[in-house]
């Protein structure tokens, strides 16, 4: 009852100074819409840049690292608890890069509830022969279906059909940079030499472009069977198992677990790309800072207008107090005014922000390094809208708090006698 009356009084006061109120609300609208647009755009760019790496990086990668044997013979004689063993000139062992019992590991992983998908891979360094020149490169043996599903491989293939590497034997997809160096066109045959000196002719069935030139200059993709043939290995030979998880954040813990379970090296994405997150974080921080500054400016606008309104409405405040409204009630009236400016201004801001984001989303943005991107990237993450809404209410509440406190302290006697 009381609140209804307070809202009614607030509404009348608001409408009596409609123009000022509107200007204050427009201030909030402007800052909220800028906040939303800025964050959406920035987040879209972040997602795009993150995607360049994250899309193609497994969350956990299982492989055999080349490293010295942990169990040196001397440890069996003198145990490290009682003695110090000094060994000079340890060398890395010629361990097999092959993952032992890979089939069983993959089956186990596929049953794990936390795993989104598994893709086997063979990484094989090779030389591409072009006349007298040898270009060093890498052939990745991949299972095209899981690679496409988990790592969006198909999006980066700019020419040819990615499925061809499995359909046609002895075929390869070259990085665009590599293809340019080899002067290779679709349908051409390139000579690939393994480290052992074996030469293989492979037919080019596609090009891919990752957005990172260094990668495009060295990488190429073929089917697992083709690479096994290339390396003269049996058909259970793979060197890497790539795992995508349902929850990226759990990667370090799961990597440790697999490391123990399968007795194999496991690296998680956070460890492999430690510096990566910093960039996104700083960009997001800057957008938030700008957004908050805009809101604070709008808050000062509201503060000013409420202050003015209180000076104009001294008589009203005095009469309300004389007829039985407590200081608290008067404060609530002005807080309701401030909050409704924040609410409606903020709501309009969210809608306008969404509109601006949608417009940016339509602006063409074409770059040769990102073939899958046609317009400026924009994120429509509802979190930003929620933050914008909460911020607009908090700022207007604070901007309204001080003037409304002043209003609550108005002494009606001074006003009434002073007339």
């Amino acid at each position, binding site marked *: 009852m009381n609140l209804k009356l307070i809202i009614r009084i607030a509404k009348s006061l608001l409408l009596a100074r409609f123009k000022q109120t509107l200007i204050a609300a427009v201030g909030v609208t402007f800052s909220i819409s800028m906040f939303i647009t800025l964050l959406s755009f920035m987040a879209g760019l972040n997602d795009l840049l993150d995607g360049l790496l994250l899309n193609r990086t497994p969350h956990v990668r299982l492989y055999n690292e080349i490293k010295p044997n942990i169990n040196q013979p001397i440890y069996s004689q003198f145990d490290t608890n009682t003695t110090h063993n000094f060994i000079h000139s340890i060398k890395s062992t010629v361990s097999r890069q092959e993952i032992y019992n890979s089939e069983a590991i993959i089956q186990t992983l596929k049953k794990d509830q936390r795993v989104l998908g598994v893709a086997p891979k063979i990484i094989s360094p090779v030389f591409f022969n072009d006349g007298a020149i040898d270009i060093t490169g890498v052939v990745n043996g991949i299972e095209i279906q899981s690679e496409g599903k988990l790592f969006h491989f198909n999006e980066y293939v700019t020419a040819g059909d990615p499925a061809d590497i499995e359909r046609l034997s002895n075929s390869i997809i070259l990085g665009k940079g590599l293809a340019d160096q080899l002067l290779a066109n679709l349908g051409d045959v390139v000579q690939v030499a393994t480290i052992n000196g074996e030469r293989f002719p492979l037919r080019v069935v596609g090009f891919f472009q990752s957005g990172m030139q260094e990668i495009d200059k060295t990488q190429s993709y073929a089917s697992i069977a083709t690479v096994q043939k290339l390396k003269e290995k049996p058909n259970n030979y793979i060197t890497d198992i790539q795992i995508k998880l349902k929850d990226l954040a759990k990667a370090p813990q799961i990597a440790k677990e697999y490391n123990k379970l399968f007795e194999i090296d496991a690296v998680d994405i956070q460890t492999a790309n430690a510096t990566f997150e910093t960039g996104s974080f700083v960009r997001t921080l800057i957008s938030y800072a700008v957004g908050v500054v805009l809101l604070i400016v709008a808050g000062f606008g509201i503060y000013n207008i409420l202050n003015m309104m209180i000076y104009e409405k001294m008589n009203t405040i005095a*009469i309300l107090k004389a007829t039985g409204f407590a200081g608290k009630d008067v404060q609530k009236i002005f807080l309701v005014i401030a909050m409704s400016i924040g609410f409606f201004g903020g709501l309009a801001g969210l809608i306008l922000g969404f509109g601006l984001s949608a417009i940016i989303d339509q602006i063409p943005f074409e770059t040769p390094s990102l073939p899958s991107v046609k317009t400026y990237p924009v994120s429509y993450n509802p979190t930003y809208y929620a933050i914008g809404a909460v911020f607009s209410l908090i700022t207007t509440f604070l901007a309204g708090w001080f003037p409304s406190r002043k209003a609550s302290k108005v002494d*009606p006697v001074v006003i009434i006698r002073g007339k």
Partner: protein
Amino acid sequence: MSNITLEAKNITKYFHDPTTVKVLMDINFSVNKGDFVAITGKSGCGKSTLLYILSTMDTDYEGELWIDGESMVKRKEPDLARVRNEKIGFVFQFHYLLDEFTVLENVMMPGLKLGKYSAEEVENRAMEKLKMLGIENLALKPSNQISGGEKQRVAIARALINNPQIIMGDEPTGNLDQKNSQIVFEVFKQLAEEFKQTLLIVTHDQSFANRTHRIINMEDGKIIA
């Protein structure tokens, strides 16, 4: 005790700005139920100051104030606001209506604040009061579009809405012409005689005071008669 609506005991007040001046000295008096009292005196004798203390709006004084058998000393601001809302009706020299609202809404406002009756009930009562004062035809007009005399009658209707124990007036006719003063006085008189409404009016209009039931005369912060 039960017959006393308002009682002031030893009320003393100082003004501290620019220098400390004693403006009210040891004021003692009481108002009984149904009294029609006028406080008179020259400008600056402290009669308005006294009224604002009695109205509970000014709390910076020494002494005791009893309204309807309850002490008003050392009570919290929201508590005093409730007392003003429920037990005291005000009529000021200047109308002090809220310009943003219609006449009816102005009258209803303290009633809605009290929250004792539903909005419809308050509206009915407000219309009743306006009818009693003969201005029911103004009910839906914006309050800044009526004449000064009408405004003062609306203010009286507003003062009456919660059936207060006492109505206080600070020069209620001070800003009105002869004709309108007469109308307002007649309203007060009717309230006192027909409805046994307790009234405490501050005025320097001697002819107005002479026609009330009791005159409290003040001079230099003291009651002299």
